């Protein structure tokens, strides 16, 4: 299904990319559908976050070929992502219950 490319990362077949695209499309449809089911807020939140992470990981690993690519590229993407996630969560914890920073 995949062959090693000259610059180090695995090159998949077009069929594999179509398969990944189909899976991502199914997840996107599932994301929309779960919002209509009327699930408890926390369950809905968890489901949406999990599906978002799975979709994002698939795009980065298979379409951007980060899986199997040089470690320096992984560092350049994952380090800012972790910092950004930490910042978002910290700001949510600090300010989401208030009426905004200025308030």
């Amino acid at each position, binding site marked *: 299904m995949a062959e090693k490319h000259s610059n180090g990362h695995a090159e998949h077949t077009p069929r594999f*990319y179509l398969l990944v695209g189909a899976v*991502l499309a199914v997840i996107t449809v599932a*994301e929309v559908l779960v919002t209509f089911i009327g699930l408890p807020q926390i369950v809905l*939140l968890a489901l949406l*976050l999990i599906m978002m992470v799975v979709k994002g990981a698939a795009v980065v690993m298979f379409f*951007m070929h980060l899986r199997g690519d040089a470690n320096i590229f992984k560092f350049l993407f994952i380090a800012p992502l972790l910092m950004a996630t930490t910042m978002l969560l910290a*700001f949510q914890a600090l300010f989401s219950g208030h*009426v*905004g920073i200025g308030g």
Partner: protein
Amino acid sequence: MSQISTTSSHSAASHGVQADHATSMHVDSRKLGVWAFIGSEVMFFAALITVYLVYKPRNLAAGGPDPKEVLGIGVTSALAAILLASSVTMVLALAAARRGDRRQFTIWMLSTAGLGLCFLGGQAYEFTELIVGEGITMPTSLFGQTFFILTGFHGTHVAIGVIWLLATFFKVRAYPKSRENVMDIELAGLYWHFVDLVWVGIFTIIYLMPDFAPEAALVLFRHAGG
């Protein structure tokens, strides 16, 4: 000096990196630059999303529009599907270029740019609905400011991506299989996939979870009001 240079070139070549663009880490300097740029863009969009989420309760407290009443997910679901499809066509264009299949490369690359234009058209429709239909503009509410800045910056990135894709296509179309041209396509593709990745986050956080922590916000509004 020449020995160092020769050793470096040989090592770079053994890693499949052009000597002209090799770094001491044996990776292509242009690809390194694009990944560093993408890393900075991650921080940029995370900051915009954070600002949107932090100011959302304040917008509601000030009587601003409720996102769950004004944001429809019909159009944006279609936009998500369009960007997702464009990521697939982009990666197929890169695969076709590596195979040296010019016809397939042309089809997939132009399809990617076309889907990008469709996304921009859909976003223009959504903005028109909000501005003309709902009367929401940047000066009228915090929601207007944070929403339009976030999604507007994303749309701008899509527009830049379409220009980048078309410029790359016209540059490499004569012989997309050369190593230099394949790298050009790969770099444009990296940026395009990142634009899709940002929409994955925006679609879920902004459109699908509009009730993010609503109870905590409601309680504190009462405290603030009393």
